[in-house]
């Protein structure tokens, strides 16, 4: 939300006009709490036949493409995937990095924007946090899917055993396991805490199995002053604590590549570069999901407005700049260094078999956002933001694809160069996408997708003050 001083109105009519312009902000367009509650409950409980068709389709896709294909691979062998020497990692790991990237959206929107008191975040926090949890759920399966012997995958965890064997704490894969588990637990708690007052609200307004469900989730929340105080300080502590966890997760994912000796991967820039890319794709995905929520759920055009798409669009543009900056640092310095093995990699990307993907990535990640997102009208049009988010996420997926199977098809022995073509990986990638969408669709009907109390808090704190003859939006400090 922008806070701008409004010039003095010249007439009564003009004053009303300004009033309308101001009212288009959610926080300056308050409605009574009972009305907000009713709108959110209605959105949550309304399911159209179309919704159930989509959900069953997603459930079918998840069962067949994800679990069915994985089971088939587990029974026959990793060979049904397209990976081959020297690219021992393929689309599985690329998709893993993609999902971990998507999962950065929630924490970024709800923790960083909360800490910086960006008021526009209020209606979107939960939608973004759910992306974190479900993105991680989809992503965390991939390290298991890609294991040659998944049935002994638990050996990567430190647990007491009579062989006195520990995992190898020098291996980035062990760091990965620890970082992702921490992030999954932390972000689930972080979704849950601000949810408590909302499920308590839902508990008081529902019957039957829903009542039981919310009663358990609400942990006996009554809304006393003491409860609110403890909840607020807990959220505040978690918001600060989850930010370093978020940074560590994608840094450690990037170290899977950066600590190796493989040309193209061995880079000191990968940590911040991966984080910029993760937030870039995550924020773009938030734009997409907001569009879906707004168009498919009831009453959502009150909560999710053009101003929110506008703000998300600005973030997308900023992170597009950041990502580009890192990408070209990486690219130009490797080219300037002149190391022969690095040259092989960059030749494969710029002139070789991956060139069409590389240029497509530059168009999707740089050209398209830079040419469109500067325009306020584009940023404020929901379907355009959906399209842009889609294009950027395709571009970011290509980026991960080029890093993981793309770069390792080249090495220091041209005799051993080979290509890569995905086989069952495609099916499993479709399956994990439908798992994410399925979990999200079910969650959107089970828990309030809009944090009602946060919206109301913002609306109470924000008001139009008359200073002299001008009306100025003001926000009072809450903490």
């Amino acid at each position, binding site marked *: 939300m922008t806070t701008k001083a409004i010039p003095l109105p010249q007439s009564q009519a003009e004053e009303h006009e300004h009033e309308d312009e101001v009212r288009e902000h959610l926080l300056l367009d308050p409605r009574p709490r009972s009305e907000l509650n009713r709108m959110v409950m209605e959105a949550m409980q309304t399911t159209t036949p179309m919704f159930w068709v989509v959900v069953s389709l997603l459930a079918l896709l998840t069962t067949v493409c994800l679990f069915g294909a994985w089971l088939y691979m587990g029974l026959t062998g*990793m060979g049904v995937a397209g990976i081959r*020497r020297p690219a021992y990692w393929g689309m599985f790991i690329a998709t893993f990095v993609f999902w971990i990237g998507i999962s950065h959206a929630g924490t970024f929107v709800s923790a960083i924007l909360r800490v910086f008191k960006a008021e526009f975040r209020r209606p979107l926090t939960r939608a973004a946090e759910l992306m974190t949890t479900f993105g991680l759920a989809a992503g965390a399966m991939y390290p298991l899917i890609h294991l040659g*012997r998944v049935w002994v995958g638990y050996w990567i965890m430190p647990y007491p055993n009579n062989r006195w064997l520990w*995992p190898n704490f020098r*291996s980035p894969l062990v760091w990965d396991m620890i970082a992702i588990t921490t992030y999954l637990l932390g972000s689930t708690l972080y979704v849950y805490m601000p949810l408590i007052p909302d499920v308590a609200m839902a508990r008081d307004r529902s019957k039957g199995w829903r009542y039981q469900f919310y009663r358990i989730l609400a942990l006996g929340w009554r809304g006393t002053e003491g409860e609110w105080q403890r909840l607020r300080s807990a959220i505040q502590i978690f918001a600060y604590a989850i930010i370093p966890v978020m940074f560590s997760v994608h840094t450690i994912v990037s170290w899977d590549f950066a600590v190796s000796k493989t040309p193209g991967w061995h880079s000191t820039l990968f940590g911040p570069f991966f984080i910029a890319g993760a937030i870039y794709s995550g924020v773009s995905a938030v734009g997409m999901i907001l569009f879906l929520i707004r168009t498919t759920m009831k009453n959502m055009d009150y909560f999710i407005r053009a101003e929110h798409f506008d703000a998300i669009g600005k973030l997308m543009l900023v992170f597009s700049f950041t990502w580009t900056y890192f990408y070209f640092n990486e690219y130009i310095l490797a080219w300037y260094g002149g190391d022969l093995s690095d040259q092989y990699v960059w030749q494969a990307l710029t002139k070789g078999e991956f060139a069409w993907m590389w240029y497509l990535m530059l168009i999707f990640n740089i050209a398209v956002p830079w040419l469109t997102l500067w325009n306020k009208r584009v940023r404020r049009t929901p379907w355009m933001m959906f399209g842009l988010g889609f294009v950027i996420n395709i571009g970011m997926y290509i980026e991960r694809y080029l890093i993981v199977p793309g770069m390792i098809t080249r090495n*220091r022995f041209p005799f051993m160069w080979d290509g890569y073509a995905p086989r069952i990986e495609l099916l499993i990638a479709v399956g994990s996408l439908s798992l994410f969408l399925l979990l999200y669709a079910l969650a959107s009907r089970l828990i309030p997708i809009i944090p009602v109390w946060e919206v109301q808090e913002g609306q109470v704190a924000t008001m139009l003050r008359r200073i002299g003859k001008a009306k100025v939006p003001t926000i009072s400090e809450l903490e």
Partner: protein
Amino acid sequence: MEEPEGNGKWGMVVDLDRCTGCGACITACAMENNLPFVGEEDAGYGRSMQWMRVERGWKDEFPDIGAVFTPIMCQQCGAAPCEPVCPVFASVHSEGEQINLQVYNRCIGTRYCGNNCPYIARQFNWFDYAKDMPEPLNYQFNPDVTVRRRGVMEKCTFCIQRIRRVEEDAKAQGRPVRDGEVLPACGQACPTNAIVFGLLSDPESRVSHEARNARALQLLLEELGTQPRVVYLKGLRAPGSLPVK
């Protein structure tokens, strides 16, 4: 990480001037170490299982063109890139022989070692290839070597089973291991004796003498700091080759 200098440091010298590129070493290695036949389709796809490869390059221009051959196997690095990245210690260093070992039944198949090996020396079992071995052929398996199952990594072991057998015989007879007593399958099969194997820690062994040869090249990818254990010799009639050390 530097490894402690022990007394059993095995190494190999490959004389590229003698190598004719016949590929006998690859075949012998496959027979000795129970390497599976992956079949035509998978081999064509780039999944052939061999612990050694003979890289062929061309030198000079037509009509005086000649082929150069470089047999490359696991270099048994002193500071092996495959070891620290394995999350479960399946890729480990043997203190006794100072070579790099793969523990098949510990491997969970992350394939990280395969990505991080700068020599592309590691192979992955994509399927249960040994299961598909037709009836009489399974009797050719070497009982001294594990038949690997699917989902694990494998690589050249310097024929560790032969080293261990000789070491145990010598221990039983109360004598040190004699020079030339251990010969890996590739060296045994080589018709031109291009592969010499022995203890690099013994300065008087044949392999140590050969390694100090004036024709010894820079170690393969020595600049990466991997401390490889295989020395390549080259120098006779080789214009344009790497500078002699």
